[in-house]
């Protein structure tokens, strides 16, 4: 489970001075649920998820992820989290298998367990044909599968996806979407960020709309439709975000 309490991140920007990239965000995501963080570019999605994955440290507030505090026990949090984004690339000079093995070892798996997990994952994701191929020689689809295998190797309770389909073709994106759904079906806690409305409509149990670092609205798709008297998610999104929207805010 994920629970954030007043999660805040302030950056020092040369031009704008102190910028609150994430401003007191409090949200809850339960096991077996997909939480979709919906927002425009620069709204604060990536920073929020990076704090949940303990890649960044919160300036204020905190979050409990898989039972551990992100500020007090970041390493324990990471041991229970699978983090995937378009920015999490693979090591080009390692083979697909070496890449997954490396992360298995870093997650403290012993060699016997690691081997079992690898065989299982490579079989399930149909990756055996390119197991020993170097990552820089893989196709985009193969790379995505390797990344997925990397996040799954330690069987984490919580999955964090930061715009996982951005820049991917339809077929590869579908693999990822299918994978996210599977994570939920296996009882994992899933949070993911996107600016693609259709993905949110298809996948999410809870939607959080974020702009200028603030969580402006939260609820299931049905609840949001009810509250804003609109059917189309995009219309709802625009109505919520428009008052705060500043184009090209940047990160």
């Amino acid at each position, binding site marked *: 489970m994920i629970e954030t309490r007043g999660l805040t991140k302030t950056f020092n920007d040369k031009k704008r001075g102190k910028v609150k990239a994430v401003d007191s965000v409090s949200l809850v995501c339960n096991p077996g649920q997909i939480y979709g963080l919906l927002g425009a570019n620069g709204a604060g999605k990536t920073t929020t998820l990076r704090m949940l994955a303990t890649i*960044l440290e919160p300036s204020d507030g905190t979050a409990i992820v898989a039972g551990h505090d992100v500020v007090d026990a970041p390493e324990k949090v*990471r041991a229970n989290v699978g*983090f995937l984004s378009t*920015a999490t*690339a693979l*090591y080009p000079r390692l083979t697909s298998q070496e890449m997954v093995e*490396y992360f298995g070892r*870093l*997650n403290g798996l012993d060699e016997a367990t690691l081997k079992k997990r690898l065989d299982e994952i490579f079989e399930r994701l149909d990756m055996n044909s390119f197991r020993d191929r170097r990552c820089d020689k893989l196709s985009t689809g193969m790379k995505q599968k390797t990344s997925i295998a990397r996040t799954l190797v330690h069987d984490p309770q919580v999955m964090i996806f930061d715009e996982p389909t951005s820049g991917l073709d339809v077929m590869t994106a579908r693999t990822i979407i299918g994978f996210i759904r599977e994570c939920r079906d296996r009882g994992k806690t899933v949070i993911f960020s996107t600016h693609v409305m259709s993905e949110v409509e298809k996948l999410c149990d809870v939607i959080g709309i974020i702009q200028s670092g603030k969580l402006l609205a939260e609820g299931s798709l049905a609840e949001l439709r009810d509250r804003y008297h609109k059917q189309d998610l995009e219309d709802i999104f625009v109505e919520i975000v428009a008052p705060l929207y500043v184009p090209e805010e940047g990160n």
Partner: protein
Amino acid sequence: MSFRNVGIVYRKELTEALRDRRTLISTLLVPLLLFPVLTAGLGAAIASLIGKAKEEIPEVMIIGGSDSPEVVAGLQKLSKIKIVPTTPNYKEQIGNKEVRAAVDIPANFQSDLTEQRAATVKIYVYEGEMKSGIAAARVEEYLKNFRDGVVKDRLAAKNLPTTVLTPFDIKQQNVAPPEKVGATAFGGVIGYMVILLCFTGGMYPGIDLTAGEKERGTMETILSSPISRMHLVLGKFLLVLTASLVTAALSVTSMGISFAVLGHLHAFDQAGNDAAQLQMHIGLATVLSVFVMVLPLAVLFSALIMTIALFAKSYKEAQSYITPIMMLVIIPAVAAMLPVDLNAKLALVPILNASLLCKELVTGTYHWNYIAIIFFSTCVYAAAALFLAVRMFQREEVLFRS
């Protein structure tokens, strides 16, 4: 501290480094080839060029001398120079390397000699130009012999012995063993090379493991794993250190072998050089002591390269930061080639101290008090640099600089 995690990172980085052509070239190939090429290749090339220059019979012009046939005839008889007909633009021709030198015999030279009046013979030369220098030296040698002959005749005429002019002789006698003579001449260069290669050996992996990782987008991947940032830095640091030390070790070994082979072949003999000057026996003890001195320096370099390169967003940016740092390494390393001796103050100057010490070690001189100061001060600098590298990896604004 989990050595297991540091080991996991180290092993993975080693696997990647061994598959990286750039790292392999800078770590293995350059140090292995540099010394043989430098000593044998360049040495032989220089020797053969000097030999050729000496073999060439330079063309020389004689200006004047029509009333001094004896000197002119003597010059013409010399087999080591060739007298060519004089032209009025001889100075220009020397400048254009068409003629190597010209000798100006003043009017009435011979009669002045007979009547014991002072006279000056001028040799026109292209200063700094080797072949012109050789020609001038040959002319001068002849003229000096000629002068000595005149002096002898005059002394004989007055019934005086030749010792009137040279009542005693002065002679320098070398007491240093031949290998020390060679080592003193080349010790500075060796320290410089080892230090420089120690730096360049760590440079490519140091950039690859920091800025390279950012550029390829794997930084976020690794930061999302449970490994602590300290273990991550240490694992990476150990790999950079390995590369730096392997480079240093290979360069010292290859240097030892090159000089041993060279000493054996006496390759410089043909050039007429003193073969003893190059007899450098870099024994195992020297190699080991140079290596031990280089150890803390390699730690310092590795940590420094990583700290600076981590700040960069890309491989290229990192290279542009590291290049000026390399100058900071080269300058003190080169300074050690100047006639400077170690003292307590200099023993505290990083890089320069190790470079000066290398020079001493190669000649087999061990000043233990300086060795201790240098070793420990470099260890302190290295520890500070390593601490800085670890701190750098904990700073978000450095890791996610945009």
